[in-house]
């Protein structure tokens, strides 16, 4: 049944499309969808995919490599250097703590000390793929939780090299040569003494940095000049492949190398080009990876000893969670960020597959232990998104209340007239300008760390979730004149403004929106003051372009003013035309084009460039001649 590659591809793609769209419809992370798809098409449910699932997993691990390259692209070298303390501190604490607790657990369960140690090392490592994919999907990379998770995962990427290196020392016999696992790297350094190995590793890191600057960037420039789009894709893949190959060759983690390569290239002009080129590859490969994990859950092993596996599964997750929580505590994360970290990284990750099969090859683990641990690893990974949902939907909303009770300062004693929700880049600019006029708005923000930071800067910022009516009430919504909604997330914006409009109709809502669709949505809900962040800036840019081309600035100024006025009128009219229901992505894209045409048409009809005769002597001359006739 599984003979043809095409058939397999169809099974994977179909599984992904069906399950991920269902997961998304239910508001769940796409990771759950992929995992579910994997379980369904795997050997124990529908049986479309047999044991080759594991091979696919190793192939798809490349998605993690690409992902780390992309993450590296977003982190400039300077920021990376700034992170060194968190990486070593949080990462070191988490790995050592987990190994220690897990070792105690497994020796208590009468495992041989070597087995216990190997398992503990595997348990200490979390899943970069799952954690980072979830963080990116939710746009939390800039939060403390995001950077902490990332730091810990990066440290794990480093430490796994040491673990792999130490593994043979635990070997029961000299069977290294008979290691039969596909993931074992044939690596040139095994024969070299320790000192030379380290030297080679350092050299290869230097090589990546130097090559990034003097080889890769010039190459990309040449490629870009050809203006053949697919060459750039080829070049992007070549970079990632080469770095991975080099890293495997010297025995480093390819993901780590890719990350470094990304950091080196983050300052180059090709940053965004590389990002957009590699993004689809990453997403598909990661999807494949998650599906392979789902497919590799061995339900026969589970059925044999469900209690043992269930018990161990629970124990491992709790153990990891406890260590992460304590790590967060020591590094003074706020409660909500700490809980996100705790539940986000409490799984055993993909490195465990590598470590475990390596140990199996070295005869440290027997078949039974190996199967059991592989199942547990796959299960913890599958459970992570579910635990996260429980955390987000059931635990975090309650924490919010506790948090504000715990900080008496947050009790909003004086009710001010203006409430500003969301204090990110947009909201803080609004707040600063208001403050420069002596207007102290009551500011609400979700990120407790940002709240603390801004307080140190002298802002009056309160921590809390603005979708909670009770919080808005304690912020004085009843007496407020205006509520400024500067939230990034459209659905939260909608929720907040709808709620306020229904309960406190006297409060004037001033709403930041991202684009037209959001504007339509809110206009149809009866909101009046809508500020599209994409409108003003784009016109300022266009105005400057025309100015550089020789158009007069004053005329352009007037035109921008007219354009905005006219755009506002159109958007209000179109909002009525846009029927509810056809809001799926494809429809939107098509409508976008149609609208763009409509706009251009209206511009044309209106003759926007020559809108008045003010200061136009030609016009007067003509009229005078006419009256003479």
């Amino acid at each position, binding site marked *: 049944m599984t003979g043809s590659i095409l058939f397999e591809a169809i099974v994977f793609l179909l599984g992904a499309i069906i399950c991920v769209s269902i997961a998304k419809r239910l508001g769940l992370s796409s990771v759950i969808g992929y995992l579910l798809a994997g379980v369904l098409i795997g050997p124990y449910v529908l049986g479309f995919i047999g044991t080759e699932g594991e091979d696919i997993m190793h192939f798809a691990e490349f998605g993690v490599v690409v992902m780390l390259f992309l993450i590296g692209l977003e982190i400039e070298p300077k920021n990376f250097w700034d992170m060194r303390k968190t990486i070593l501190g949080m990462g070191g604490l988490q790995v050592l703590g987990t190994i220690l607790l897990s070792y105690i657990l497994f020796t208590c369960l009468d495992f041989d000390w070597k087995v216990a140690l190997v398992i503990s090392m595997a348990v200490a490592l979390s899943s970069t793929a799952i954690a980072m994919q979830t963080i990116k999907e939710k746009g939390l990379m800039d939060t403390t939780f995001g950077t902490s998770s990332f730091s810990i995962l990066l440290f794990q990427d480093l430490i796994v090299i040491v673990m792999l290196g130490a593994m043979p020392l635990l070997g029961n016999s000299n069977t290294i040569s008979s290691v039969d696992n596909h993931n074992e790297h044939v690596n040139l350094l095994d024969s070299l003494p320790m000192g030379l190995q380290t030297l080679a590793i350092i050299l290869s890191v230097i090589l990546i940095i130097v090559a990034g600057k003097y080889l890769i960037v010039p190459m990309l420039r040449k490629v870009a000049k050809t203006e053949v789009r697919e060459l750039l894709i080829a070049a992007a893949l070549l970079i990632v492949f080469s770095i991975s190959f080099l890293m495997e060759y010297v025995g480093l983690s390819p993901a780590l190398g890719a990350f470094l390569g990304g950091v080196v290239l983050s300052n180059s002009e090709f940053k965004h080009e590389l990002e957009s080129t590699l993004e689809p590859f990453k997403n598909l490969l990661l999807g494949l990876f998650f599906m392979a994990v789902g497919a590799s859950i061995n339900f026969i092993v589970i059925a044999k000893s469900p209690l043992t596996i269930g018990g161990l599964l629970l124990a491992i997750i709790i153990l990891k969670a406890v260590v992460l929580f304590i790590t967060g505590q020591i590094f003074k994360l706020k409660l909500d960020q700490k809980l996100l970290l705790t539940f986000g990284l409490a799984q055993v990750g993909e490195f465990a597959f590598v470590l475990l099969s390596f140990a199996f090859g070295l005869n440290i683990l027997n078949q039974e232990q190996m199967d059991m641990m592989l199942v547990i690893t796959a299960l913890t990974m599958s459970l992570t998104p579910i635990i996260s949902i429980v955390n987000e939907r059931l635990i975090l909303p309650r924490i919010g209340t506790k948090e504000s009770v715990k900080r008496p300062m947050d009790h909003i004693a004086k009710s001010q007239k203006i409430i500003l929700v969301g204090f990110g880049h947009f909201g803080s600019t609004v707040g600063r300008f208001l403050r420069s006029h002596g207007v102290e708005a009551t500011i609400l923000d979700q990120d407790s760390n940002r709240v603390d930071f801004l307080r140190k800067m002298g802002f009056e910022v309160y921590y809390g979730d603005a979708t909670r009516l009770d919080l808005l009430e304690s912020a004085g919504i009843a007496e407020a004149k205006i509520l400024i909604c500067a939230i990034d997330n459209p659905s939260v914006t909608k929720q907040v403004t709808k709620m306020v409009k229904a309960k406190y109709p006297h409060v004037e809502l001033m709403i930041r929106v991202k684009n037209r669709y959001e504007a339509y949505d809110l206009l149809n809900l009866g909101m009046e003051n809508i500020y599209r962040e994409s409108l003003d800036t784009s016109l300022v840019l266009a105005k400057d372009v025309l100015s550089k081309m020789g158009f007069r600035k004053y005329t352009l*100024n*007037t035109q921008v*003013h007219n354009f905005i006025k006219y755009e506002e009128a159109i958007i209000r009219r179109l909002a009525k035309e846009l029927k509810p229901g056809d809001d799926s992505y494809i429809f939107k894209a098509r409508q976008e084009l149609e609208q763009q045409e409509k706009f251009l048409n209206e511009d044309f009809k209106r003759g926007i460039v020559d809108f*008045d*005769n*003010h200061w136009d002597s030609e016009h*007067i001359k003509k*009229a*005078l001649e006419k*009256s003479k006739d």
Partner: protein
Amino acid sequence: MKKILVLFSHPKFEKSRVNKALVDHIKDMEGVTFRDLYECYPSFHVDVEAEKELLKAHDIIIWHHPFYWYSCPPLMKQWIDLVLEFGWAYGPNGNALQSKTCLNVITTGGAREVYCSEGTNSFTVNQFLRPFEQTANLCGMNYLPPFAVMGTHQLTENQLNAYVTQYSQLIKLLQQNLALSEFNGCFFLNDIPQLQPQ
């Protein structure tokens, strides 16, 4: 009752004690449309059509503004430039404003004495206002002498109150269709007999 449109232009209204007092007393009077141009058009993008509609709907136009460098503030000039269109306010078929009445209400820092050929300003207020006079004339409007609150720097509360009362009295008189002949010989509307304290 004649309908009055007060077109008020002041770039720093919030800092002007005298204008605040003057405006406060007349802006809500019956039959008066008060229009704060700097509030309506902060970016100088005057809505010409809307302004034309307003002009059409009123009989008397008051340009109320402080005297800046012997003239009006820039937005008021912008208003004149844009709204008084060729072919509408003047020129062929430009008779929309025919036989309406027009005047300036101004505030000046300097006292009346310095606005004469012997004074530091060399010319009289009426001379400085010639461009406005001729603008009104070209549009076929009857241009009245200005109502002026002068020497605002040294104005006492009592003096200011007197001016404020005079301004609202003047508006009432204008609404009752004061005959043009009654202004003859006066350089300022302040000086007409009806506005003198009994």
